[in-house]
């Protein structure tokens, strides 16, 4: 186990850096290093087994860190300021993605649980790649850039809410009660923390420890209620985003996660990539990927059109919301761990999602370059204002 972890970290760093150099997401480099170290390449010739329960445990912690960081970065204040247009775009994107995912499962003749699980994978957008593409186009300050960024914040929140509503175990009425308990607990703590803000208790680094501890406690709480652990970690992040220590907490938690736990999660995702799955289900994977991309593009374009954006800009927004990355992978591995997918299907869905991540991050920048048209009267950057 120790050797595998060391090798995985080095490989993930090298490939991640390589991908950063060629302007691709680091995450894809990390997944590829997982494929390299996994049972089909290095694992085949050497005595290296990456998919042990211990490493799965570390990967689980990586998931919790990832969602905790995302909750902290998104923050309740940003959610409040997202605005009506962002809200409409995010709602349409989230709902249509979920419905399209459900239909993919339905068309393939799977049962309801599986259909819902596929729907969940489709929901969460990742804007990292879009932000990079918009930066290169010098379009981040444009109306489109701002709309994409604000709706992507809400998108993650809706993803988590849909996930908590659909991924729970138990009969529907019990499930509703469980979800209610979870959110009541969340709001109670939210207001307690707001009240405690000015308290006079001083223990150095208490809040940092409490933050990390609560990420785990909330995860455990969510898990005990039959909801997924990741929901707990995400809402714990939101909870602590309210404090003045938010930035310090990010500064402490980010390196912890980014250096060790999160890369190992993505490597383990790569290692579980099954080449055999591809042969049998070429059609399913293509169907899965194209529906995932279409769902977001159509949903968000529709939302933008309804909130009075012109057609071309609406399409650009739709395309900008297509990429899936961290959260989609987290959702898949959570669902697989909960044994929602049967054995061959699990490998297929995992392979499909990994390819979805890669394909979406390859085509989104290209499409954005085609679609984005600079506006004539845009308020050109501040450099001008400074010199004028």
């Amino acid at each position, binding site marked *: 186990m120790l050797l595998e972890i060391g090798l995985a970290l080095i490989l993930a760093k090298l490939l991640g850096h390589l991908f950063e150099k060629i302007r691709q997401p680091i995450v894809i480099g990390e997944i590829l290093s997982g494929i390299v170290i996994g049972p089909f390449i290095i694992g085949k010739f050497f005595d290296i087994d990456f998919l042990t329960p211990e490493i799965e445990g570390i990967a689980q912690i990586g998931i919790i860190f990832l969602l905790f960081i995302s909750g902290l970065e998104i923050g309740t204040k*940003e959610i409040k300021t997202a605005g009506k247009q962002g809200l409409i775009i995010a709602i349409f994107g989230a709902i249509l993605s979920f419905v399209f995912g459900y239909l993919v499962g339905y068309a393939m003749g799977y049962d309801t649980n599986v259909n819902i699980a596929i729907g969940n994978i489709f929901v969460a957008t990742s804007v990292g790649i879009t932000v*990079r593409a918009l930066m290169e186009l*010098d379009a*981040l300050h444009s109306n489109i850039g701002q709309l994409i960024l604000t709706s992507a914040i809400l998108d993650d929140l809706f993803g988590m809410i849909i996930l908590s509503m659909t991924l729970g175990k138990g009969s529907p009425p019990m499930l509703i009660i469980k979800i209610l308990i979870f959110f009541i607990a969340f709001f109670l703590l939210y207001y307690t923390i707001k009240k405690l803000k000015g308290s*006079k208790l001083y223990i150095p680094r208490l809040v940092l420890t409490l933050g990390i501890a609560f990420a785990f406690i909330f995860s455990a709480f969510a898990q005990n209620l039959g909801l997924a652990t990741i929901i707990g970690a995400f809402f714990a992040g939101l909870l602590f985003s309210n404090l003045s220590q938010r930035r310090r907490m990010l500064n402490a938690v980010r390196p912890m996660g980014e250096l060790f736990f999160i890369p190992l999660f993505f490597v383990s995702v790569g290692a579980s990539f099954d080449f055999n799955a591809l042969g049998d289900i070429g059609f399913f994977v293509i169907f899965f990927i194209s529906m995932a991309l279409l769902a977001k593009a159509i949903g968000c374009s529709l939302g933008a059109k309804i909130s009075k954006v012109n057609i071309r800009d609406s399409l650009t927004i739709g395309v900008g919301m297509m990429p899936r990355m961290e959260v989609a992978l987290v959702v898949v591995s959570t669902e697989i761990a909960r044994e929602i997918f049967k054995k061959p299907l699990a490998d297929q869905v995992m392979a499909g999602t990994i390819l979805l991540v890669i394909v979406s991050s390859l085509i989104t920048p290209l499409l954005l370059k085609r679609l984005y048209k600079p506006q004539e009267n845009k308020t050109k950057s501040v450099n001008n204002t*400074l010199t004028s």
Partner: protein
Amino acid sequence: MDLKELHQKKIKEVLNERHILNLPLVSKDAGINTIFSVLTGRDHIWIVDKKGSKKLVGLITESDALKLLAPSRVPKYAFGWRHGISLQYGTAKTASDIMHKQLCICSLDDTVGRVLSRMVNAGLRRLPVVEKDEIVGEIAVHYILQLTLGKV
């Protein structure tokens, strides 16, 4: 002044008029060029709700302005939108785009010792003195040092 005695003192007892009248206040809708020009004279700016108001909503420091000048990059795992804010891409337009929104504050009734430990915990050298959401002064490490040396 004896250190122990100083730690017991309340902020309102030590606060100098200079730290009440001479606060760098700018409203949150002020443009980025205003921020930069104020920062040429001061090393921090308290951001208030609107012009004339004293309702504290944020803080901009020298290092925030420096960060704006650096080339922006998206972190390894990106969520939310704060990494998108940069002078380079014209996304930093007003004070409210770049300010710290969650602040460490103190009140007139806090003791100097408490304020100092708060500064140490948070790694800050200056805290706003806030009463009912309104900024009434500021207290800096530098000033407390002057107090200990009896140079005020």
